[in-house]
């Protein structure tokens, strides 16, 4: 479904990605784990076009998407949950969700999806007239995920959904990520620091270090891999 081949991305003169290869099949949850500054977020930004790669190719469902504008990539069905949530603070929960469906014109489908995300996160339904900025961190993360789902993406890019949240809420959110993948067959590309949890819900994983992919395996094998356990799982 998504194929990243030899992508190199720079911030000015600083090379963040030194030739990345990732392949994601339809319906998978793929996780990308690694330390701070490894280039995980940059990988997502390259896919979504917000930080376009300088060289290399990205294919989505066989078609090259390298060099497309961010909004054109969203139109193709790739939606991003940005790191640090980035909800619209002064818009209500409902308006935030409506912004997620900005490119859609099927009012009925949008309404259905709104009911669907409210069934995933009932707390958002209670808070629907509240401004996004007044929600707690966990609720904001839920809202960010819901907003991305409102675009009805075929590929959902998630950047550190566990950032700054209590362990209990993190576990709840990860449960829902798995549920979204199982129920609507949405392919999910999950970038995470919390390697343990991410590998538990993912099918396959990639390990990243200093802008390079160093290991790739099924999630179960990575969880048992001695090096990975030492470096990222703290065992």
């Amino acid at each position, binding site marked *: 479904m998504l194929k990243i081949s030899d992508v190199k991305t720079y911030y000015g003169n600083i090379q963040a990605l030194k030739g990345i290869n990732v392949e994601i099949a339809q319906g998978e949850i793929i996780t990308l784990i690694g330390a701070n500054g490894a280039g995980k977020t940059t990988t997502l930004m390259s896919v*979504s076009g*917000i930080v376009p790669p300088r060289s290399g190719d990205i294919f989505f469902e066989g078609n090259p998407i390298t060099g497309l*504008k*961010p*909004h054109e990539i*969203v*139109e193709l069905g790739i*939606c*991003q*949950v*940005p790191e640090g949530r*980035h*909800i*619209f*603070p*002064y*818009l*209500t929960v*409902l*308006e935030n969700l*409506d*912004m*997620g469906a*900005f*490119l859609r014109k099927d009012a009925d489908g949008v*309404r259905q999806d*709104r*009911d669907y995300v*409210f069934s995933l996160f*009932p*707390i958002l*339904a*209670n808070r*629907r*007239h509240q401004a996004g900025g007044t929600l707690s961190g966990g609720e904001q993360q839920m809202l960010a995920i819901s*907003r*991305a789902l409102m*675009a009805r993406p075929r590929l959902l890019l998630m950047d550190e959904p566990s950032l700054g949240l209590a362990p209990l809420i993190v576990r*709840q959110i990860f449960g829902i990520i798995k549920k979204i993948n199982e129920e609507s067959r949405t392919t999910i590309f999950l970038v995470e620091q919390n390697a343990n949890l991410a590998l538990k819900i993912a099918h396959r994983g990639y390990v990243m270090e200093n802008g390079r992919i160093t290991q790739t395996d099924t999630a179960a094998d990575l969880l048992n891999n001695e090096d990975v356990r030492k470096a990222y799982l703290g065992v």
Partner: protein
Amino acid sequence: MNLFPELRKSFIASLWFMFLTFPIMVIRVNTIENIVEWRWMNLVFVGIGSFFLSWLWRYLLSRKEMGVNKKTDDQDRTSLVSRLMKNKQLIIPAAALLAIFTIIFPHIFSTYQTSIMITALIYVMLGLGLNIVVGLAGLLDLGYVAFYAVGAYAYGLLNYHFGLGFWTALPVGAALGALFGILLGFPVLRLRGDYLAIVTLGFGEIIRLILENWNEFSFGPSGIANIPRPSFFGMDLSIQWATVYIYYIVIGICCITIVIVGRLQDSRIGRAWIALREDEIACQAMGIDKARTKLNAFALGATWAGMAGVVFAAKTTFINPASFTIWESIIILCIVVLGGMGSVVGVVSGALVLILLPEYLRAFSEYRLLIFGAILIFMMVFRPGGIVSDVRRVYRFESSAMDDKPQEYS
């Protein structure tokens, strides 16, 4: 409120004020008789005045802070004015009264009053235009006056060279405004906040300097004179009737502006603007074309400035670069911020207050701008959201599947 420390603070403030104003309020050098006059009474007045004003200030501030605590969540969202505006029984007669008043205004008041009103209404248009850029899209534009100048000079020059009339120049001015808006928009696509403000400030100055120095093109500082007022079906009107006629034209354009801006606000473009204002990264992640949205905002905002410029040229019949200084940009920005960013009613009332107030404060002669400044400071401290703050349309959730029972957060 603890009385004693508050009074002490006010006392210190008044001492400080007495010290500060001592050189200008007390000492006066009489150059004719070569003596220095000591006006000690003024010192007493300043002391007493500043003491009470400082005390009043503290009292209002503390009341404001207590008031915030008392307000419930529901009241907090809607101000008195917006609650009044929702009241259907009140709004229709009020609107009718307002309409009648606006229509008969030039017939019951003097030409001078009508003329002031026209100026205020021109600023209503400018304010609504800038509101798109600053209030909705959140792009701080300090060079907005440039588009106003473009409109005014478009009419002046087109009339001078080709004899174009007001009605032909109006759409041309609007189109030129939009064109210049896009022209400014391109280089600033990547900028935000302070940087954007400075670039737009520079743009505004460039336009003014070009008009001032390119003598062959714009006749430099001497400007363009004898610009015709709009003619009434080919008839030339006397000054008095032309003023009335322009008044009705401006009222008409203002109404159209209000309707269009109001509609824009609730449209897809409007939502994209608001998203852009709130969070740029999220806006891109939602599939909004950032570049196009910004250019839209600049172009549509500048369109109204271009039209206002044409009307301004027709009203004054004389334009020169001195009318398009940075001060004008600041006033328009004040109208938007003071009236209430993003709120149409707010911007309209802001324009009326800000333009009419200095005119009617003429009775206070040299203290006019002092009082004006004090009102601005007061407004921003006690009503930071503006005269009528923006209340966006509340979307009701129509599905019955979700009830309002508080659910357990597990």
